[in-house]
């Protein structure tokens, strides 16, 4: 007995999905993107540092797994604090993550000055173990804090990892939103232009040609300089630049679809132009649109980081990878990790998006036959 082999009908989407899942680099890129996105969304709550929290005593800490303050930093910190409290350190001992201090002064000690200890971020609340009769000698015990800065801290003492993750939210948000706007404008413009054709098409495309010739990045810069940069303006400005490609791609697709029999049939059946657009044209241009959109996201993110690098994009206290890279390149010699960390996040995300875009292009290309 032989099993009847019946070829199953597969939709384009199913074929594309199967091809994409077989493309290992594209799959890896997809996983990377999901991890980065989740980390940016949830990560800042898990790192143990609020994004804007400043540790003035833990500036420019190197990246690593060690707990801060590090053992050799405790004594100098205590000396510094004692100087501020106007007390002398007579005895100093570290044991099991706590410090035991003997503090002396020529005058009676005001115990409220001990609040310098917890205020420094490095130590917990002090506990007074012994007081001398004349009040000029105190034995104090306090816990040494344990902070972890995986990617180090920046020049004012903020956790760089948390900052990178929070910045990633803005960068990714701008990338996705601006792409979406460009997508909507570009697809409708291109589809209408291509479907109506004739003089309208010529006029609409002439407009696109003129817009192409404008030095548009320059216009974005003028806009941002003159009208106070802000997140939303950056978004709108970038989207206004980037819809042109999309319009061209969709128009070309529409032109080639227009002559096909199923569109003619729809026209002969009396369907209205909007109905044909929505039902027949746009769905058939989905492949190239998806690819173009995936490749547009990294371009938008790159453009935003360029603007932010110039100081024209996202403004403090909000931050993006571009802002962090700009800060990092100013502190390059003293704290190179401040450039490395955000640049790493940016580059990994951009490469992943580009690889995914290429993978989608291959997966959706109908010319590639399905083997097996």
């Amino acid at each position: 007995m032989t099993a009847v082999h019946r070829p199953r009908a597969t939709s384009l989407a199913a074929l594309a999905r199967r091809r994409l899942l077989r493309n290992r680099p594209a799959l890896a890129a997809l996983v990377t993107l999901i991890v980065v996105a989740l980390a940016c969304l949830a990560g800042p709550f898990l790192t143990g540092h609020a994004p804007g929290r400043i540790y003035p005593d833990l500036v420019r800490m190197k990246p690593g797994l060690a707990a801060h303050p590090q053992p050799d930093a405790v004594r100098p910190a205590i000396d510094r604090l004692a100087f501020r409290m106007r007390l002398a350190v007579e005895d100093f001992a570290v044991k099991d993550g706590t410090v035991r201090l003997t503090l002396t002064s020529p005058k009676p000690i005001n115990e409220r000055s001990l609040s310098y200890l917890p205020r420094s971020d490095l130590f917990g609340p002090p506990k007074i173990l012994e007081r001398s009769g004349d009040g000029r000698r105190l034995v104090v015990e306090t816990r040494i804090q344990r902070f972890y800065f995986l990617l180090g801290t920046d020049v004012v003492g903020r956790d760089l990892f948390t900052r990178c993750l929070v910045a990633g939210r803005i960068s990714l948000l701008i990338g996705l939103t601006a792409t979406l706007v460009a997508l909507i404008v570009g697809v409708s413009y291109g589809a209408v232009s291509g479907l109506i054709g004739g003089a309208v098409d010529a006029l609409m495309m002439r407009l696109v040609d003129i817009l192409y010739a404008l030095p548009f990045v320059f216009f974005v810069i003028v806009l941002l300089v003159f009208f106070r940069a802000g997140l939303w303006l950056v978004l709108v400005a970038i989207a206004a630049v980037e819809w042109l490609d999309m319009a061209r791609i969709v128009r070309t697709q529409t032109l080639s679809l227009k002559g096909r029999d199923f569109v003619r049939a729809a026209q002969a059946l009396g369907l209205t132009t909007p109905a044909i657009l929505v039902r027949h044209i746009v769905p058939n241009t989905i492949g190239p649109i998806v690819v173009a959109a995936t490749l547009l996201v990294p371009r938008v993110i790159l453009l935003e980081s360029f603007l932010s690098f110039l100081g024209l994009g996202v403004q403090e206290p909000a931050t993006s990878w571009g802002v962090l890279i700009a800060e990092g390149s100013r502190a390059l010699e003293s704290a190179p990790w401040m450039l490395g960390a955000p640049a790493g996040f940016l580059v990994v995300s951009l490469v992943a998006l580009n690889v995914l875009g290429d993978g989608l292009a291959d997966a959706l290309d109908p010319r590639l036959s399905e083997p097996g």
Partner: protein
Amino acid sequence: MIGYALRRLLQAIPTLFVVVTLSFFLMRLAPGGPFDLERPLPPAAMENLKRLYGLDQPLIVQYGRYLLSLAQGDLGPSFSFRDLTVNDLFARGLPVSATLGALALIVALALGLALGTLAAFRRGRLADRLVGLGASLGLAVPTFVTAPLLQIGFGLSLGWLPVGGWEGGSPRNLVLPVLTLALPQVAAVARLTRSALNEVLVQPHIRTLRAMGLPPHRVALQALRGALLPVISTLGPVAAALLTGSVVVETIFGLPGIGRYFVDGALNRDYTLVMGTVVLVAVMVVTFNLIADLLAAIVDPRLRLGA
């Protein structure tokens, strides 16, 4: 072909006109003026300054005057660089930016074409994958990351090259900026060449050449001719952008080019300087698109009929 070129240049005039008009009025609509200082000038001095630069006239008169002098090739006096005209500034800075840009373009083409061809002929093998990975990285790493990395690596750690400065264009000072400018373009050209070659290499005429026993490098030359077209057509805007300078590269390496003038000019409300930069870039884009189209017609005879 000369007639075609002239026609194209004439067609560009309306485009340039739109560019000039848009940027002129966009800038004047914006709040702030070129003489706004921390401490406001006395009204009389302000009046005099405005009269000196013709800013006391109605906007439409200013616009007319600007167009008139622009038609004569005069870009007007700079507001922020006193005693200098925009033409002076460009005469000083453009050679710097253009030198860097031209060198970067040459590096990008030479390396990009070589790597792209290598990848296409070794399709699916290690070399192809390495080129693909390198190209993805090259496209993703922004110049404002590459530049500091190169400075640290070759400038500070190894001490081979200066970290910045122009020094009259000495070759040692050129290496790092040119490399920074060229890297993303190398990646772009390599990718384009690779994918275009992949399409050409399966076509019948190439198969015939191979079947006739032509050595691989001759086949490559033949195939490359067909694959050059997409590369050339993207080269127009790229060349214009490279030759008019890069804000990032010129700022980071401290080079006296014109890339910085646009942002500086916009920040200082230096109307004429910003306008001049916009006009310059638009002219460059139009010119290099034309050159790219003419080159494309030389490479692909079919395109000449359409002209």
